[in-house]
């Protein structure tokens, strides 16, 4: 079968938050932009498993302090602040840039208070370093207060009773759902003309005169520029454009746990121990659930090693209980493993530079945190493309606003009734645990969801405590109906994840005919 050939000005490889942010930024200009994603849905890689808060201030200072053990005595702490790195610059700019854009893109978000607690001598020493550096740096880094026990329990009544002191900030952490951010960026990009191809793993990249040909599992694309935002697979994609790469990728996996919404009263915001190298210890409100990331960053050799190890979950729960003693295993409704990607040239920073042999192939290798800096990163990438000869002419009809799929659960009865009058499918609640209606599921499919996971990421159907026990069959049937495909063709997330084998009686009929 002859592969269809598309034409573009820029091809973005990778449909996580990085690729989606770049796509949106490019869609401001009169350019043909195509984003290719190897998974069956957006966010198939690292974005899905990311912790994903948008934050500034104390959490950044905490990461800086990790290197303090390497500082020769007498060196001021401010030496740990590297404002010239892309990572630091984009974190600082990113938080500010996100605030209005979260509203523009109708992304659900909430400021949650941050409390870094300390109970023993080492933790207090660490905490004081964070405090001191934060105050010395000033600005957003100094926007916190040190509080005593009484104030700690007033703000977070359920923390470890042995806590001695804490640093607290009200507006430095924004709780979001990472797939929602990436999907919102992508939807806005599509609305403004960007094309997205799913199940489109890149197989090869070749030259054709002044152009490059990106060959995927589906179409081929003839393009001027290529942006490599393939995160964990970025090294392989880079090599497709030629050798000479002087960096590699290393991967770290970490487990995360979600607790039932019944526990939401246990924590008001984010509660954590001070940063310690190689691990993260925090418990936070994530929407109406509790999210726990209390564990080490364990080396792995694959970017898709999302294998959850039981012992890691047990260890994580044990540490979580040191933060919030009332946490219990019986409230676990989900565990998942995320992979964090770092480059081997400079583990502290991103690599955003053209390929040594191909000046129209731009590597955008972003390390964590990937969401905070996504907007300035995208602006920077577009600037680099322009400097490399990409003509940028602004569209006058670019619309930066995007409307979310109605979040039925969060709406008042009055608004719900208006929705239902307009489309009765919004009155048919399919997912009981998260109160998701048929109307939302149909809309999610209209917007590009074609698998169970796609529906789940856009609507939350199946994310609740019963994990799709009730809504599962109904969601699958709606997917089949709306996509006009047989039920047996509906997938969990990708082409090789079918949910159901065959129709009733087929196995019996096969056996009878002697077919194994």
């Amino acid at each position: 079968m002859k592969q269809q050939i598309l034409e573009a000005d820029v091809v973005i490889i990778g449909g996580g938050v990085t690729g989606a942010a770049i796509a949106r930024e490019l869609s401001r200009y009169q350019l043909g932009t195509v984003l290719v994603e190897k998974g069956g849905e957006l966010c198939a890689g690292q974005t899905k498993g990311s912790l994903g808060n948008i934050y500034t201030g104390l959490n950044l200072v905490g990461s800086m302090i990790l290197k303090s053990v390497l500082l020769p005595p007498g060196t001021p702490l401010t030496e740990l602040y590297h404002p010239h790195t892309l990572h630091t610059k984009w974190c600082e700019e990113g938080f500010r840039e996100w605030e209005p854009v979260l509203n523009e893109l109708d992304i659900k978000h909430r400021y949650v208070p941050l409390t870094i607690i300390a109970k023993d001598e080492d933790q207090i020493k660490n905490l004081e370093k964070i405090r001191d550096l934060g105050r010395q740096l000033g600005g957003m880094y100094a926007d916190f207060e040190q509080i005593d026990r009484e104030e700690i329990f007033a703000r977070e009544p359920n923390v470890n009773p042995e806590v001695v002191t804490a640093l607290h900030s009200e507006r430095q952490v924004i709780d979001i759902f990472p797939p929602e951010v990436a999907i919102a960026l992508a939807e806005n990009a599509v609305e403004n003309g960007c094309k997205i191809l799913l199940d489109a793993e890149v197989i090869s990249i070749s030259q054709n005169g002044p152009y490059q040909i990106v060959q995927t599992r589906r179409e081929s694309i003839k393009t001027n520029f290529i942006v490599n935002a393939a995160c964990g697979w970025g090294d392989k994609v880079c090599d497709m454009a030629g050798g000479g790469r002087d960096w590699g990728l290393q991967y770290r996996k970490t487990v995360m746990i979600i607790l039932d919404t019944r526990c939401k009263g246990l924590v008001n915001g984010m509660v954590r121990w001070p940063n310690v190298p190689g691990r993260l210890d925090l418990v936070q409100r994530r929407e109406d659930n509790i999210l726990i990331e209390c564990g080490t960053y364990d080396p792995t050799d694959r970017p898709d090693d999302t294998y959850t190890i039981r012992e890691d979950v047990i260890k994580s729960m044990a540490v979580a209980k040191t933060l919030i003693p009332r946490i219990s295993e019986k409230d676990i409704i989900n565990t998942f493993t995320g992979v964090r990607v770092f480059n081997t040239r400079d583990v502290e920073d991103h690599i955003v530079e053209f390929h040594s042999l191909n000046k129209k192939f731009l590597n955008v290798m972003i390390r964590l945190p990937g969401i905070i800096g996504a907007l300035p990163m995208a602006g920077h990438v577009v600037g680099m493309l322009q400097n490399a000869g990409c003509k940028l002419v602004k569209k006058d009809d670019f619309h930066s606003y995007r409307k979310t799929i109605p979040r039925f659960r969060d709406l008042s009865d009055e608004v719900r009734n208006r929705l239902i009058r307009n489309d009765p499918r919004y009155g048919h609640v399919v997912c009981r645990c998260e109160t998701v209606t048929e109307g939302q599921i149909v809309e999610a499919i209209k917007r590009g969801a074609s698998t169970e996971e796609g529906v789940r990421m856009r609507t939350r159907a199946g994310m609740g405590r019963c994990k799709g026990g009730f809504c599962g069959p109904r969601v699958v049937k709606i997917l089949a109906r709306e996509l006009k495909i047989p039920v047996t063709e509906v997938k969990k997330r990708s082409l090789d994840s079918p949910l159901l084998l065959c129709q009733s009686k087929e196995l019996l009929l096969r056996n009878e005919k002697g077919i194994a």
Partner: protein
Amino acid sequence: MVKNLNEITCIICPLACCISVAVDDEGRLIEVANFQCKEGKEYAVAEYRAPMRVLTTTVIVGKSRHALVPVRTNRVILREKLFDCMQHLARIKVEPPLMVGDVIVRNILNTGSDIITTSELLD
């Protein structure tokens, strides 16, 4: 005389006695042991001789908003015939309206039992 021992787990009550049924080479009953009640003894002998089962399954429905109708045998049938009945029923399609107890197949595979619907299906 050769004694062939067969152990039958009784299902009549929660005691679940492991009743042993001893037969000779010609299959004639010699002795039944380890039972605690008459019903258990009778069950064990019958179960040894010819295990009988109710078959419950589904049949495909056409021209309906339902995919299947649940059905059952209205009598117990020989356990050996279960799969043959499943094969036979796999090739059958019915249509609404259906009432509870409608006969879909009379005397299926000569078992002496009919296949009847167990649910009402009006559309």
